[in-house]
């Protein structure tokens, strides 16, 4: 079986992450319930007319993909695998409200076409003229990890050499309003940089796109090696330490070997207990990193955590803003990521220096 390397990154998030020469050197703080992204100059990557037609999710996905391809020095890839929790939500909202407001009359197809979940993956294929394998995973907080699992399987078996994977989600205003009503979004705007210490229910939402070229060939640009990824539809807090330990030992490592653990805390008092179980358990002596106070919570926010991990490994640097405890960090060789959303769809990802 072949090894699987992260050969490039491309990120658009609430931080200025589209420039691969930087690693969170300046941090944007927000006092919001929902975070916007720091937009790159989309016109540098797509013709302005095309950019205007594109939904936000498509635009972010296509440009993050192009950044990732540039970073990998590739013109093409063998496959494109996208993860998205909600797809192009704004177009879904637009089409649905047009149906309801106009009693099913005077509708145009554009927003319907863009509303399908695989629009981003399809548009990336069109942009890159990639006729290869093209999948879209849409399973809440494991959408991105499902894409990674799929890519890893193909690369290990040498069915492909270079696969573009990514996570992308956009905010839809009306849906966000509904999520406020049911308490999934925090009731008030909060200082996002402090949100992990929040004592309230719900999360600060965000949006973004994080794409990566995974390859079974290591090169001088490689960021790290993906050793394993596992997803679980359900997992109770009481099983968490054991499952994490079992996952590590299946990969021949123990908790002591983990140099940094990357946790998906989002400041929701109701559900951050899952992360605390690990932070105060198996990884109580491990340097801990959190990232959702920088990018907000969304179904594919863990792809930003993966971006953080790739950058940490390659740069051998850990920006202070990511740190959740103050254990000294020496060399960053093995990183474990753990994520879940509202107690469901858990994932462990083990990434190693290469």
């Amino acid at each position: 079986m072949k090894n699987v390397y992260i050969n490039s990154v491309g990120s658009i998030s609430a931080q200025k992450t589209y420039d691969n020469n930087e690693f969170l050197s300046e941090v944007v703080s927000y006092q919001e319930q929902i975070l916007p992204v720091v937009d790159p100059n989309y016109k540098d990557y797509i013709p302005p007319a095309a950019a205007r037609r594109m939904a936000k999710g498509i635009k972010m996905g296509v440009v993050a993909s192009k950044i990732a391809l540039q970073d990998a020095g590739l013109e093409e890839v063998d496959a494109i695998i996208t993860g998205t929790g909600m797809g192009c939500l704004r177009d879904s909202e637009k089409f649905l409200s047009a149906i309801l407001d106009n009693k099913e009359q005077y509708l145009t197809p554009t927003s319907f076409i863009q509303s399908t979940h695989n629009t981003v993956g399809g548009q990336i294929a069109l942009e890159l003229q990639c006729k290869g394998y093209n999948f879209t995973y849409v399973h809440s907080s494991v959408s991105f990890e499902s894409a990674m699992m799929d890519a890893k399987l193909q690369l290990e078996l040498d069915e492909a050499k270079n696969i573009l994977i990514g996570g992308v989600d956009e905010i839809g205003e009306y849906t966000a309003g509904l999520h406020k009503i049911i308490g999934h979004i925090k009731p008030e705007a909060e200082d996002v940089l402090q949100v992990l210490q929040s004592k309230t229910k719900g999360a600060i939402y965000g949006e973004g796109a994080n794409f990566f070229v995974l390859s079974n060939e290591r090169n001088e640009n490689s960021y790290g090696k993906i050793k394993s990824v596992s997803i679980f539809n359900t997992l109770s807090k009481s099983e968490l330490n054991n499952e994490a330990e079992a996952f590590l030992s299946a990969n021949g490592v123990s908790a002591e070997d983990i140099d940094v653990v990357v946790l998906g805390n989002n400041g929701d008092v109701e559900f951050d207990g899952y992360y605390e179980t690990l932070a105060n358990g198996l990884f109580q002596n491990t340097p801990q990193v959190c990232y959702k106070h920088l990018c907000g919570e969304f179904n594919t926010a863990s792809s930003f955590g993966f971006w953080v991990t790739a950058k940490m490994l390659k740069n051998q640097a850990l920006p202070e803003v990511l740190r959740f405890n103050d254990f000294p960090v020496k060399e960053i060789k093995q990183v474990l990521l753990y994520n879940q959303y509202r107690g469901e769809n858990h994932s462990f990802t083990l990434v190693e220096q290469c």
Partner: protein
Amino acid sequence: MGKGVAITGMGIVSAIGNNVDENYQSLIAGKKGISRISKIDTIHKGDIMVGEIATTNQEFISQMGLSPENNYSRTALLGAVAAKQAVNSAGITDITKYKTGLISATSVGGMDMTEKYYYEYPTNTAVQKYIDGHHAGDSTQKIAEQLGILKGVVTTISTACSSAANAIMFGARLIKSGQLDRVVVGGADCLSMFTINGFKTLMILSDTYNTPFDEHRKGLNLGEAAAYLVLESDAVVKAENKPVLAYVKGYGNANDAFHQTASSENGDGATLAMEKALEVAGLEPKDIDYINAHGTATGNNDLSEGRAIIRVFGDAVPEFSSTKAYTGHTLAAAGAIEAVYSILALQHNTIFPNLNFKMPMEAFDIRPEVSLKSKELHTVMSNSFGFGGNCSTVIFSKEA
């Protein structure tokens, strides 16, 4: 190369039957499930036809014994019913005995409830439970719960009308690579005002019965359905001494990279998908005994698919038919519905007719099988193509 993955169970609910046997009876009787819309409040009731499942949500809810507080969308209900049938038919009594996953496909997810309560949500607390049921993964989570799959690989694929074929493909790869011992794969989609109007704006809905591969085809009928297969590793089949219904022999996925909704005229993506599937199966085109075509009856699909079939099979195109005249186009579920039909074809050595066909297409001289035909079948190819250029082919076989 080309060792198949065992299929040990299947379940289905569609416009032509609430279980595998009812579907088979309708298929051999040539009984369509297409009718005027009765369950969805839409102004298009009079001018389009659909493949509706007669059973109501309330009937499914009581069948399954769900509490009145449940927030199941119709997609989740259909999916749970079909997936449970599949697991029962595989003779599984303890789902936790082996490492089991669920790969489900959907395109509409919980849109049926969202569109019903969208503007009511802010003020009516009684319906707010459906807000969290909107996202595509929700129906899959519920199906997993109904099956008792815990701590498993559970995920959802949404690649428009090719989704369920891709779920079968990914599931087969998880078994082949040893990641899972057993996986339930398939898809579910209910009808919704959202999709009806979406396809209406694209002007690809027929105002009458859909007529796949007919020169005068007027478009598709939408349908609702769910179907699932149980795939198991050779080790499990052996240990449990399981009867095997058929094998997933090959699969191929490609992207047309031509247009967001239309297929390329020469069916580049479709051709690639079929070729890859043959390669994975280790088969030649001549080894395929029957093609269950995607055949949506839109002008664009049938032309593009027909040309792609000719590109792959040359002048030796095997019998082919589209069963969408029976069920309508069931979108993300279609690949699983047609997987069940492909397996039934293999089991009964029967090719199901392409109903409603009258006039051969001028563009080429291949024509679908229009009557029920007995033929010794060893391999069946099933095509599923979708928006976003997604093209998928799965090959089912009698022998491993």
